[in-house]
């Protein structure tokens, strides 16, 4: 058994992902049982069946030690997980807050939080002065471009503002 093969057989992500895809496929097939028309279920049911078959094939590959590309789940180890989580949380929170506080305020808050999340350099007086101003220009500039020039009806918010 070669080193690669040993590594592949030790890697348990393949069977876990295969199980996940089988579960998704089963869920899709279950959902298709409620459709009224054959036109609606032929395609998703066929694709879900193929996906389940491929997942089983992936499991067999793993059992035989033929899984050549296991990905790199350990790549996160030496990198900042909290920053990653903060970025995703900030983006989702911005989307959910938009209808309530308006796009402009939600966008500015997102910009500040993500800027702090992505900041690795020390905060010098120059950066403290320039970065927030640049952020305001970018957010307001894009807001005006979309809202005024492109006539996109961006959310204005429902909450009463203190100003």
């Amino acid at each position: 058994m070669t080193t690669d093969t040993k590594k592949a057989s030790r890697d348990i992500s393949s069977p876990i992902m295969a199980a996940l895809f089988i579960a998704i496929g089963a869920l899709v097939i279950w959902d298709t049982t409620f459709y009224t028309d054959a036109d609606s279920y032929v395609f998703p049911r066929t694709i879900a069946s193929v996906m389940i078959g491929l997942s089983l094939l992936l499991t067999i590959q793993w059992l035989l030690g033929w899984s050549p590309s296991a990905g790199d789940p350990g790549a996160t180890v030496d990198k900042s997980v909290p920053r990653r989580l903060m970025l995703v949380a900030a983006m989702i929170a911005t989307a959910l807050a938009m209808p309530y506080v308006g796009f402009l305020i939600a966008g500015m808050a997102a910009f500040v939080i993500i800027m702090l999340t992505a900041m690795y350099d020390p905060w010098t007086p120059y950066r403290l002065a320039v970065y927030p101003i640049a952020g305001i220009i970018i957010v307001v500039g894009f807001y005006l471009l979309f809202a005024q020039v492109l006539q996109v009806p961006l959310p204005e918010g429902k909450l009463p503002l203190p100003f």
Partner: protein
Amino acid sequence: MAAFENLIAAMSPMNFLLALGGVIAGTVIGSLPGLTATMAVAVLVPITFSMEPASALILMGAIYTGAIYGGAYSAILLNTPGTPSAIATTFDGYPMAKRGDGDLAVTLACIASVVGGLVGAAFLLILAPPLAGVALAFGPVEYFWLAVFGLSLIAALSEGNLVKALMGGCLGLLLSAIGVAEVSADIRLTFGSQVLVGGIETVSALIGLYCVPVLIDLVATPDKHLKVTTESKGLRLKEAMHYSWRGKFNLIRSSVVGTLVGILPGAGGSIAGLVAYSEARRTAKNQEEFGKGAPEGIQATESANNATVGGGFIPTLVLGIPGTPPDAVILGALLVQGVKVGPNLFTSESSIVYTFIYGLFIATILMLPTGLIIGRYAYRSIIAIPKALLVPTVAFMTLIGTYAIRNSVSDVVIMVVLGTIGWVLGRFGFSASPIVLGLILGSIAEQGFVQAWTIGAATENLTGMFFGRPISLAIIAMIVISLFGPSIVRLFSRQKTPATGEDHQ
């Protein structure tokens, strides 16, 4: 003589300025993730209502061609296709940018876009009426096989494990089925969620799957976004011209593919780019370099997607059937202007049509200097902006761009969630591209499949429906070659190598 007059009319200062302004506006709008070529044309259509029909067409054609090219910037520099047409540009563009060749990639994309645009416009000028018949020769089953051909590219994008890539493709196909079924109006795979009833919007999914994983990885380390060489290399025009001359057959073939796919109503630049990419890879000697930063990949995609501009105008003007989504907007604008499209347009109102076609040539040629300058500026901006400003700026652009597509907060949430799922799947060896391919081609494949199945069942000739039509058979042959050709060639070369070795011994 009439042709000369039309050329002079197209070169009038007003039309020249409209072509220039349209290309610049289109390039800038197209480069913003979330703003597609269709939106660029739609947003600027009202300006054209007060213009002469030929001038209006020139402006809209220039915006369209500029937007298709502009999509390459963010595809190359941010791994986010500015427009769906630029999906395949990310495959090699972003790896080139990461290794420090972003400037070369942008210049290559500009040259390829100009070549593609010119070939498409030439077909429109010379062969529009006969080529319009191609659109009518494609039935549902041909669209189905065309979508399958696009999906066969998954084999090329498998990054070592074909099974995982195919599983990703299936996941994308299932994602495309979410929402209201187009044929029967059943609500599918929403599991009671109102957020999913509208389905997954393709462009927002593209932004999520390509851009969010890049952002997630960017915030995790203090490393620079792109590798920056110490010395400025300028536009690297000479180098790009060398690659373009070396890849001239690839450029021409991809441009013809783009034109022909553009003629097919509903197919569009994304399929053109994918098919051309697949063909370029199949015929290349350096197949293993595709997906890792091969200039030929960018050349194929960018020439093909810009060729769809001219190609798409063929059925639009000759048959009144829009070849691509932006053509539908342009068709509407022409109807507002009182221009009757149809076979007689090229004779009864030839001055309008030919002035426009020459204007499209001028706009495409103008794209070379403007594209190079804007591209250079975009590249320098991306590498000069500190990460603490780049990441929130791109994140904000993804949020506002996704929202603007359908004015939907749900789309924004779906975009972020899909991007996060894409990142997690990426950790386990499932790359985003097969999922995206499935998502984009899913609706075309399903519509074609279901319609062909219905017709085949009604005529009691299912096998003949799927496998008995000449165009279908030609596409099936291309699929088989695309999927198994490289393996067969490798097999033969392996058999040949030991034999050669024995000869030496």
